[in-house]
């Protein structure tokens, strides 16, 4: 990312979109940029920033969608990234997207952006919801109070966006003297004292913003200033705490809200009587302590049913397509073993990714994104919060666990919705134990097919019990205290197809760009092992594990391949024994042990690689070892128990 703040003759403008979550920021971003988007990571942080480019009057405009946040403190990485972006990248204009129907709370955030002193334009979005609630906002008054342009928008209906864009461009070209939000007298005096003390120094940010952040004891900004400034700050903060009888951080929050409240009182007017809040009516059913869970179960079951029906159809179709190509390829005039290597080693990996995994995860993520955009995922978090607390994480962690049923790789990314690293690690470990679509294929193809569906359900149930106990264990022994849930409940809304497709793509992208190459490479390595005739040695090395699990060594060997991609276990079983009638290879008890162990014994390489990317090598190795050891112990116990039945 470039920093061209001093470059006056450049032809590129940067516009950043900031705002709370659930205010329609992404919709505005999509409407402004069309299909032209890149998703990138902010350096050093696991926060995604989306960018789009548009051309207008020979001007190249870069639009950046910053994460949805509620404050500019250090509560989450998203907050740090947002303020770093505004301070370091110095966008030409920051569009603050505000939920007009929740003006008071949104002003709290807007005031903090104004504190930075960046050029700001306000999009008063979801204005229709405000009107439905029976209110209106005095735009002229709000503009004069804030000293920045304010535009009414209804992004989902593309209303007001043209004006927003034009006024943003106008703002970019004009000079702007920031009018900083003014707080109470006692605080202003002390902010000014700090600003004065800071005057000999040079900073990236306005001294006023820095002074406020110092008063808030913001660690990131404390690092920037000399000790004597911090001493002065301590003294001033103490004075304020004595006057107000509150901790300094609370005082500043109260001051911002007091100002937000004054502004709201001046601009917000009641027009008609409030209409019925449908979201609340729906929630009476969907958040009901009994019916709520009933509908949750129903919705999830329906989702899995659709996914597996549609997925197996798609998978058969794509698999058939590749199968029909194979004879043509094999008839090419090439060296026989080279052909085998290319097909089995390289193409087969692609077939697996596109023919076995993708058909299941694509419809799965489509439905999940639909639920997300409708507002229902927040309700799932609400319903599952009490239960999730028993395993040390809060309700929001249930969402990556659901994502895991598709593929573990994007699910680990999905744990980013959690605020703390500890919570993310617990949720990720649990996510890797959730049967992904590949593992479900095994359970269906082996356990359900040869033992009956009851046993397949039993394996799922065993797995869920196992996940619960692992959660209990982790919560007990991992350092740190659990975080509680504080979550805004968005209104229900009609999902927007474009947003759903984009969310689906964001989830699938991890699978394509991250998991697929790993699947293909590991497939090639496996083929190499077979060609080099190294299998007998491997078979020897798995003997102890075969003994523990009570499985034939050759069948145990397939678990090694399963580490590359889970469904390979079944494919290799058929390859090694030259039959797909697994009842001839394994006894029913062995099938059960095999099915259970495949579900939990190790994250696949793509998942391990993702764990490494998100949490570092040490954590990735520890998780892998932990799961391997645990599964061998449990598999061994299961094997022993079954002998006595």
């Amino acid at each position: 990312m470039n920093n061209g703040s001093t470059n006056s003759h450049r032809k590129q403008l940067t516009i950043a979109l900031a705002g709370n979550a659930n205010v329609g920021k992404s919709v505005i971003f999509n409407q402004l940029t069309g299909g032209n988007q890149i998703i990138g990571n902010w350096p050093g942080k696991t926060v995604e920033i989306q960018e789009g480019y548009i051309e207008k009057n020979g001007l190249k405009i870069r639009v950046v969608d910053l994460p949805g946040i509620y404050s500019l403190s250090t509560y989450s990485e998203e907050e740090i990234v947002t303020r770093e972006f505004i301070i370091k990248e110095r966008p030409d204009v920051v569009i603050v997207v505000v939920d007009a129907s929740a003006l008071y709370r949104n002003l709290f955030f807007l005031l903090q952006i104004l504190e930075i002193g960046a050029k700001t334009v306000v999009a008063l979005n979801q204005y229709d919801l405000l009107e439905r609630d029976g209110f209106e906002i005095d735009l002229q008054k709000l503009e004069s109070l804030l000293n920045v342009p304010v535009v009414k928008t209804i992004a989902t209906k593309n209303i007001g966006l043209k004006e927003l864009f034009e006024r943003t461009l106008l703002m970019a070209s004009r000079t702007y003297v920031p009018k900083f939000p003014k707080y109470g007298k006692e605080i202003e005096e002390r902010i000014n004292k700090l600003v004065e003390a800071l005057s000999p120094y040079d900073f990236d940010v306005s001294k006023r913003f820095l002074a406020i952040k110092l008063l808030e004891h913001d660690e990131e900004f404390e690092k920037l200033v000399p000790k004597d400034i911090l001493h002065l700050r301590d003294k001033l903060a103490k004075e304020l705490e004595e006057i107000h009888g509150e901790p300094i951080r609370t005082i500043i929050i109260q001051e911002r809200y007091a100002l937000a409240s004054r502004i709201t009182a001046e601009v917000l007017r009641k027009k008609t009587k409030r209409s019925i809040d449908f979201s609340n009516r729906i929630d009476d059913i969907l958040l009901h302590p009994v019916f709520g869970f009933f509908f949750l179960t129903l919705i999830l079951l329906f989702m899995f049913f659709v996914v597996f029906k549609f997925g197996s159809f798609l998978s058969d179709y794509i698999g058939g397509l590749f199968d029909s190509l194979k004879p043509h390829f094999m008839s090419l005039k090439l060296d026989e073993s080279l052909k085998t290597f290319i097909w089995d080693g390289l193409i087969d990996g692609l077939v697996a990714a596109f023919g076995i995994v993708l058909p299941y995860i694509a419809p799965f993520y489509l439905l999940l994104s639909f639920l997300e955009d409708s507002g229902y995922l927040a309700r799932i978090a609400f319903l599952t919060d009490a239960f999730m607390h028993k395993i040390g994480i809060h309700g929001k962690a249930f969402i990556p666990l659901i994502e895991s049923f598709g593929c573990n790789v994007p699910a680990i990314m999905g744990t980013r919705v959690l605020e703390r690293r500890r919570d993310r690690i617990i949720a990720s470990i649990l996510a890797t134990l959730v049967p992904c679509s590949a593992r479900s294929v095994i359970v269906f193809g082996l356990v359900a097919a040869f033992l009956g569906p009851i046993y397949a359900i039993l394996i799922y149930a065993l797995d869920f019990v196992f996940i619960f106990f692992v959660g209990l264990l982790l919560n007990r022994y991992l350092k740190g205290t659990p975080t509680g849930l504080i979550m805004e409940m968005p209104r229900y809304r009609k999902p927007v197809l474009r947003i759903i497709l984009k969310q689906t793509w964001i989830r699938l992208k991890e699978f394509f760009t991250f998991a697929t190459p790993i699947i293909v490479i590991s497939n090639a390595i496996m083929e190499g092992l077979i060609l080099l005739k190294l299998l007998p040695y491997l078979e020897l090395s798995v003997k102890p594990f075969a003994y523990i699990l009570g499985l034939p060594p050759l069948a145990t060997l397939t678990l090694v391949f399963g580490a590359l991609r889970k469904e390979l276990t079944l494919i290799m079983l058929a390859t090694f024994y030259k039959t797909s009638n697994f009842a001839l290879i394994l006894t029913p008890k062995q099938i059960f042990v095999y099915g259970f162990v495949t579900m939990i014994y190790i994250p696949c390489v793509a998942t391990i690689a993702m764990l490494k990317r998100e949490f570092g090598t040490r954590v990735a190795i520890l998780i892998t070892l932990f799961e391997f050891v645990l599964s061998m112990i449990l598999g061994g116990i299961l094997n022993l128990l079954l002998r006595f039945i």
Partner: protein
Amino acid sequence: MYETLDRVKANRIVKVVDFVVPKHHIHIPQYIVRLQEMGVLKGEIIEVRRNTGIGPIEINVKGTKLAIGRGIASKIIVEEVNE
């Protein structure tokens, strides 16, 4: 009468009186700061929309709905207001 938010029945309107915070701490806990940033401040009038005795409590603060985990709710001291 003072009580903690987790004990307030649904559809009641209460005023935030205080937060249970360890005394003589320079830094108040992060979750209290976050609550305050979301608008749950001392003196604020909030409506308890949903409290079923298990799971989070749903409240209405100045037009926004917030779900607050039971543990955190037990740290918010409130007093009922008659309206």
